């Protein structure tokens, strides 16, 4: 009789389905398959995909590699928001750079060249953090113990901000970083 009573037809599974309902199911199914196909298509032919390369690491190992990178590539020192010194590291053209997320800063400041492709190694030394590059708006989760190798090719010069968009404690909203593209 109705949805709060047992089906009036005892053999409800033998009742035919109306044409309108079939049509709707078919539309929904085809739409779903198109969306499914698009995700795969975009992986093969799309110009912007998330890098698929990651390694297990430890905060100590990653910090050591990043410090080595900073020591070898620092070109100048800049002042941070609270007056602290932050090294600016110029990533070798087409080479690898390291970016540390930690409470509550991004380290170091990276300097890139327009049109070059870089491999930026990204990891956290403590909690989860969120790499959010503004104003282009690219968002990547940063997880301690995992080293994510993000391939990027800057297409426009300028100063980009890195905002942390994963809650990481009391200083979360003040966790800002920078990338320069020359």
């Amino acid at each position: 009789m109705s949805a709060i009573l047992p089906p009036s037809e005892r053999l409800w599974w033998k009742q035919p389905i109306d044409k309108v309902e079939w049509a709707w199911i078919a539309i929904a199914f085809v739409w779903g398959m198109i969306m499914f196909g698009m995700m795969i298509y975009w992986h093969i032919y799309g110009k912007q995909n998330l890098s698929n390369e990651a390694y297990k690491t430890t905060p100590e190992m990653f910090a050591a590699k990043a410090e080595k990178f900073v020591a070898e590539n620092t070109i100048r020192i800049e002042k941070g928001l609270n007056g602290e010194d932050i090294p600016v590291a110029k990533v070798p053209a087409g080479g690898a750079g390291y970016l540390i997320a930690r409470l509550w800063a991004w380290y170091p400041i990276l300097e890139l060249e327009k049109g070059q492709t870089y491999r930026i190694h990204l990891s956290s030394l403590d909690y989860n953090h969120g790499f959010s590059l503004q104003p282009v708006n690219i968002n990547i989760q940063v997880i301690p113990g995992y080293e994510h190798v993000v391939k990027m090719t800057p297409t426009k010069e300028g100063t980009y901000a890195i905002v942390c968009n994963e809650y990481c404690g009391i200083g979360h909203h003040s966790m800002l970083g920078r990338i320069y593209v020359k």
Partner: protein
Amino acid sequence: MATTYRTCPVSGLQFEDQAEKLMRWNAVAGVLWLLVGGITALLVILTRWPAIKLLPADQFYLILTAHGIDMLILWILFFEMAVLYFASSTLLRCRLATPKIAWLGFWLMVVGGIMTNIAIFQGESSVMFTSYVPMQAAWHFYLGIILVAVGALLGTAVFFGTLVVAKRDRTYQGSLPLVTFGALTAAIIATFTILAGAGILIPTFFWSIGLIKEIDAQLYRMVWWGLGHSSQQINVAAHVSVWYLTAAVIFGAKPLSEKVSRFAFLLYILFLQLASAHHLLSDPGMSAEWKVLNTSYFMYFAVMASMIHGFTVPGAIEAAQRRKGYTNGLFEWLRKAPWGNPVFSGMFISLVSFGFLGGISGVVLGTEQINMLMHNTFYVPGHFHTTVVTGTTLAFMAITYLLVPVLFRRETDPAEALPDPALPVRHQHVRSSAW
């Protein structure tokens, strides 16, 4: 224990004494958590509003954690227990299996909920709803949630038991009513959701008291979302059942096809939990293949299920209205619907906004490449408030207008009640645009 029944003179529904009391207590406890969650929501908004900026950072994060836990877990789980008891005992005209265990479950949930809130308001557990490790909350934050989960698991077990009792005592003929079938899918999803929660929160609890040294941060995220996302899928199955219930009670609507609607519920069980993966789309630890397969809900079969319900519920209402003679034009059935009745208007707004705002925004968010533009941005609270608030909460509030006169034997004046279902929607519009 003697079983006593009462037949409600207004609705004709038959209530068993113990089940009715459990429904009342669970629903009232749920609404009290909704009140706490609503107050914290107000504080969150007044802080995010740049002109006011009410709270300093530490208090804001504390309040936001409480808001997430009290709304997403406590309000909804308590109310869903009431829905489960209604869909089993009342609709099947059957006594509740083991009411004592149902009460044990209720009190475990009460104690657990209060314990977690104490942990949050003590200030050492501002870890958000997600509580990603290695950020650590106080031990009783985790223990409280575990108790709530165990309590809810007992409630679902009583629901399953009641279905068995009804079958054995032949209190109904043929198959389960569709609404009970929908509640059954919600209960099945709840079971594996709670098991996923136990799988991660119990080790995390041991970690918080020092018995386990470390929990892998990526593994935590993966298993935790088996709880965090799937628990919202319980809501979907539950509020879709409530839609069918409302259509049946207000219009006497008959499902267009029992087969199609039940099959759609079945798709929820099989595929909804894969959607947990759409929280991990920009994580380093999973491959692109894994992400594509899972976040498409395995080729969007669960999305298809919601598309079907979004068609068959208004379709059933239309068919019922046309039988009553509202056959002019395409939309007379809708224009002449009882919009002054909050049970209907709340349910219909829930249906439209869950489908168009919540559902579509969620499917968009679940595409790997688009997710990179939206992960952890304000788009995300915009999406889940249109699912959980204008979808689930509004459907539950609407059905409350049906149940209050029945359960509490009070008259409500529909005119007086009318502004309320619109309230969360207005709040929601503020929220969607502000976030």
